[in-house]
């Protein structure tokens, strides 16, 4: 057989043996090529570089607002804002949680109206930024400002900001404003020979916790829980931190013999710090023989007047 014939025969055998594989490879290659051409020629979507991410939390990068809730959250805030801006007080008020209506406005829409009128004296615009998210609660910072697109900032511009909180499931939300979150009932009691303390509830805001307690003085003496120095006489135990009470400086907490008194104690505490309070400490309870004639005056705390001092811890866990 001459050379040409052998070459032809070899090629024919090659294609007979590997023709199918070559065909498959060629088809795959053609598909990839055509797909490339399609991608190259399709009109590219213009996307602008944008660093404004209102639904990503700035305090905690982990817990973002779920994608399925984002549009409902934004629509809820926009609706609430528009009601306030257009002075539809009842509609805006009805978007608040029941606890918020009660705590901040005593369930009185007129009190809410005063708040709205103070913040919206004229037409406003707003922008939001997610701060943090805890369980089904989404905390946003809202900035409410004059409509600077209409004024060009000609008379400068006012900005008001506060935390608003979205509560609810992903299909419908209620709002609590002015940084208020909600309240929690606490059924805890502690008792010794001198006193009985009943924890009733705590009101939570983004930056504070407010505890309501009933304290009964079981003794025959005056019971001074805290004098006008305030500070570390009453503290909130967070484990790795101790927070002093905020609302009794320049005042005092004195309970006369056999009296039961309702007391509120306010402490600094961020809602999203991930820490559960361990307890409230009364660090320097003094039993006094007598007190000043007016409860707002400074009482005598000399050794002669003090019957006994002690401390007591109210567990919260």
């Amino acid at each position, binding site marked *: 057989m001459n050379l040409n014939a052998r070459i032809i025969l070899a090629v024919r055998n090659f294609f007979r043996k*590997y023709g199918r*594989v070559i065909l498959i*490879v060629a088809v*795959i*290659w053609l598909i*990839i*090529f055509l797909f*490339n051409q399609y*991608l*190259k020629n399709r009109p590219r979507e*213009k*996307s*602008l*570089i*944008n*660093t*404004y991410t*209102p639904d990503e939390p700035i305090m905690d990068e982990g817990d973002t607002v779920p994608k399925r809730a984002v549009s409902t959250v934004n629509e809820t805030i926009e609706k609430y804002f528009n009601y306030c801006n257009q002075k539809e007080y009842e509609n805006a008020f009805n978007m608040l949680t029941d606890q918020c209506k009660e705590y901040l406005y005593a369930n009185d829409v007129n009190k809410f109206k005063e708040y709205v009128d103070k913040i919206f004296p004229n037409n406003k*615009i*707003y*922008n*939001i930024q997610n701060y943090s998210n805890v369980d089904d609660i989404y905390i946003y910072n809202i*900035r409410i*400002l004059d*409509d*600077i*697109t*209409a*004024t*060009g*900032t*000609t008379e400068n511009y006012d*900005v008001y900001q506060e935390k608003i909180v979205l509560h609810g499931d992903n299909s419908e939300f209620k709002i609590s404003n002015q940084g208020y979150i909600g309240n929690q009932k606490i059924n805890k009691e502690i008792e010794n020979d001198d006193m009985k303390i009943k924890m009733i509830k705590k009101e939570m805001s983004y930056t504070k916790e407010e505890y309501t307690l009933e304290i009964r003085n079981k003794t025959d003496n005056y019971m001074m829980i805290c004098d006008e120095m305030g500070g570390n006489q009453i503290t909130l135990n967070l484990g790795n931190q101790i927070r002093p009470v905020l609302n009794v400086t320049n005042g005092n907490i004195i309970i006369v013999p056999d009296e039961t008194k309702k007391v509120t104690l306010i402490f600094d505490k961020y809602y999203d710090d991930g820490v559960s309070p361990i307890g409230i400490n009364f660090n320097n309870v003094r039993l006094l023989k007598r007190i000043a004639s007016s409860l707002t005056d400074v009482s005598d705390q000399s050794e002669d007047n003090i019957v006994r001092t002690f401390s007591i811890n109210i567990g919260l866990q």
Partner: protein
Amino acid sequence: MKKNVVNILLLIVVLILIAINIIIYINNHKEDEEEIRVNNTITENNLSENINYEEEEQKAITEKTTTMNERSRMQTYFGIFITYIEEGNYEAAYNLLNENFKQSYFKTLEEFEQYVQKYPENIVVDYQDINREGEIFILTVEIKDLYDSQAETIKQRVVVKENDANDYEISFQVN
């Protein structure tokens, strides 16, 4: 054994073909991303050609803004506004203003034209600061005369709201 060798060889061929295609695609993509230069010379007075030219110019600006960061985009938009004023194209500048802003400060084009006479003939803009309120940007600028350093400097805040690439509204502090 021989079959395995053949299979491996064929696989190598396929992978080489895929790699070649990817390289070709990337190279073509790089050519498309060359900077588009805006041509500012008007070649004829033919109206349809002018319209085509303006459309091309706008398209070029739109393309360019998609590659810019936010600060550069806002400065570009205000730069375009100032350029229109400098060129005496007051209507184009007026059309960039926010509607509510126009209603409050410049109800007519003539009022706007009268106001911008306070700007120098040849303008240079010094960008002092940029802030944002959500999707709205506030630029603090100083507008100066390019050729006369003794001339008065106009300090202003400028508000830019961007709706989309090269789609924006301007309002400013009326001094």
